């Protein structure tokens, strides 16, 4: 079902072609600016303040004193160009400002102008520039053409992470009153209601009940989807898309079946009914911490022993890398388990202990590949060994499915290409960018498809799943070819009916 797009979809050719630079190719692309209410709900001024230049420059200086990474990254880039062909948005659009180093330079040139000797006295020589309205516009456009996927930081000889620069720039923009609607509106909802969708407790309870009925009908097993159960062992924190969206929901059913079959008592919390944490995307430590603390509160309130995260990429980054720091210490939980755990880790453990069994023949109708999500791949880990985030999901998939085929090596693992919709860009006002940015992943998918007749691509990220269901059709695939890893698990799980 090919779609008629309102823009040119890049061709996913036989290999990933590095385009010539096309200045301005994406200068029309920008997301909606946050309205007053959205801004104020997350602690920022409602509209662009009068003395924004002054405040922005001061904020930049302040942030370089709070974040060593930012300071080192702004100083250290040698313009070697190693990162220039690594960003999926550059590969998909050719706009030179989507080259990671050029994206950083939008902030760096201002940093140089106001905070370095050379930039103060010889701005032309070192490419320093005043902070003008055009520069602010460029910030708004191009810092919202970065999915904070960190692919560039893998290849930079100093690990310069454009994601960090984008986050800082977004924080500065929000501080002067130019925040992004999509992210800020969502963070406001989490603060107020507890999840990105603004889904109240009642609706959540109904949804979960409905799922119990569905599973009973389909599989004849009374799998429970508990909500706010005090004294449960496991608190499941999962992206709210898992409650509603396709194909996410089949993943949620998969987790529930695993818990059921392993005999683990678990619960979802209505207070922390969201794993996603968009505070990360806007670079706001305070907002990120506030959202993360809901998980701590829920764990204490329900008296659980373990916290497990569902399939979501950036949520796992915040969970794995930051949760202990932001909302710890978790000394009140069972110290036999890492806090938090990923559902893949749980399933993997249960499989290796023989506590659950998978029958891969159940998925014989599928030929599957796996999309490594950026935040899982380059900003977190699973298991006890470095790189476990690549091994564990593949082992789980292979246990659940006989036909597994990886995409080309330089497009998976730490080199994985972003789906094109991460980092707070999963909004309809950026659909052109999202479609173009998906090109490298679509190219690799096309290639593995030609070799192995792939039927499905599995993923462990709510954003990737939503993004792919939207953009797959632009590249000649079907929207339902993207699935949750735990859908494969759920379908292959050998269930005892007497449970």
């Amino acid at each position, binding site marked *: 079902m090919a779609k008629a797009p309102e823009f040119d979809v890049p061709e996913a050719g036989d290999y990933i072609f590095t385009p010539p630079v096309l200045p301005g190719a994406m200068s029309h692309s920008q997301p909606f600016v946050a309205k007053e209410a959205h801004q104020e709900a997350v602690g920022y001024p409602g509209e662009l303040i009068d003395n924004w230049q002054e405040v922005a420059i001061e904020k930049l200086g302040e942030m370089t004193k709070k974040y060593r990474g930012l*300071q080192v990254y702004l100083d250290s880039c*040698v313009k070697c160009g*190693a990162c220039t062909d690594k960003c999926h948005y550059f590969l998909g659009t050719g706009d030179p400002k989507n080259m990671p180093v050029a994206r950083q330079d939008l902030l760096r040139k201002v940093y140089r102008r106001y905070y370095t000797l050379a930039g103060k006295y010889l701005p032309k020589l070192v490419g320093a520039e005043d902070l003008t309205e055009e520069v602010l516009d460029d910030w708004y456009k191009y810092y919202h053409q970065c999915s904070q996927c960190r692919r560039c930081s893998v290849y930079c*000889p100093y690990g*310069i992470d454009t994601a960090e620069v984008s986050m800082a720039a977004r924080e500065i923009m929000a501080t002067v009153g130019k925040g992004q609607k999509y992210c800020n509106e969502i963070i406001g909802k989490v603060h107020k209601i507890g999840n990105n969708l603004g889904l109240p407790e009642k609706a959540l309870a109904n949804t979960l009940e409905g799922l119990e009925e569905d599973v009973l009908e389909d599989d004849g097993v009374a799998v429970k989807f508990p909500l706010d159960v005090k004294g449960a062992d496991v608190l499941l924190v999962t992206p709210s898309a898992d409650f509603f969206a396709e194909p996410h929901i089949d993943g949620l059913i998969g987790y529930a079946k695993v818990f059921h079959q392993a005999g683990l008592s678990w619960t979802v919390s209505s207070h922390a009914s969201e794993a996603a944490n968009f505070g990360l995307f806007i670079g706001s430590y305070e907002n990120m911490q506030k959202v993360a603390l809901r998980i701590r509160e829920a764990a204490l309130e329900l008296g659980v022993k373990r916290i497990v995260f569902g399939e979501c990429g950036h949520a796992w980054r915040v969970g794995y890398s930051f949760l202990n720091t932001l909302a710890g210490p978790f000394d009140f939980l069972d110290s036999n388990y890492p806090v938090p755990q990923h559902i893949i880790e749980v399933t993997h453990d249960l499989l290796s202990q023989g506590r659950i069994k998978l029958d891969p023949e159940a998925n014989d109708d599928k030929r599957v590949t796996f999309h490594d999500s950026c935040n899982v791949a380059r900003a977190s880990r699973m298991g*006890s060994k470095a790189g476990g985030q690549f091994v564990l999901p593949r082992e789980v998939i292979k246990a659940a499915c006989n036909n597994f085929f990886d995409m080309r090596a330089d497009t998976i693992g730490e080199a994985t290409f972003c789906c094109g919709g991460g980092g707070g860009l999963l909004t309809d006002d950026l659909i052109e960018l999202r479609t173009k940015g998906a090109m490298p992943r679509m190219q690799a998918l096309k290639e593995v498809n030609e070799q192995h007749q792939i039927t499905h691509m599995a993923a462990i990220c709510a954003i990737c799943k939503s993004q792919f269901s939207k953009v797959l059709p632009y590249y000649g695939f079907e929207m339902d070819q993207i699935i949750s890893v735990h859908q494969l698990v759920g379908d292959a799980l050998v269930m005892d009916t007497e449970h």
Partner: protein
Amino acid sequence: MGLFLSVILYGTLLVFVVGILRKVIQYATIPAPLKIPTTPAPTTRTGVVFRLGREVVLFESLFKASKWTWLFGWLFHFGLLLVLLAHLRYFTEPVWWWVALLAPFSPYFGMMMMFGLAGLLARRFLVDRVRYISAPSDFLMLVFLMAIAGSGLIMRYWLHADIVQVKEFALGLLAFDFGLLGFNPILVLHLVLVAVLLLIFPFSKLLHAPGLFFSPSRNQVDNPRERRHIARWAKPLDGNRGEKPHG
């Protein structure tokens, strides 16, 4: 001439040392509030030492990124390192044995450096992406380093400097005894350029050398589930929950 050169070399060396120290202290004291190593990352300190070691010695990440840039960049940096080590022949008496071993090859190291720099410069002109991100200073930096290496090579092959005198001058520098130096224009140029290099080092992108060691995406241990990692400034946000901040 000797006095003039001594004074500017001392002056610029002072700027260099103070400038770098200032930066290193700054980098060492700014907190990195969250764990952001680019994963897969080492799970131990020792692992991090090896990771940084590979970046410094092998340019590991650059190798993954671009073989040409890696080749030119690596030849330039290791040529530079070897040239500098061989230069110790002017500053040691008796010359350390391993310096004496390197010294005869010094011109080849210089050529290695030149070749690398030329490649990097060509890349800056020829690759449209790299041209786009280059400021005038990025071209100049390469030309400038070529001028240092070039003036050295010219002395080696054409306009010979009086090496005995250079050595006296260099040893004099170390002993705070400002010796005389005959006026060889190329040598003067060589030394003035070296002084300029020292001067701009702490204020330019040459900060990548100390920067690498402080880059959180490369120098952090991957252990956030085991250890909390709270910055000084984040401590007040932590309520009464936490332990001591990490500094």
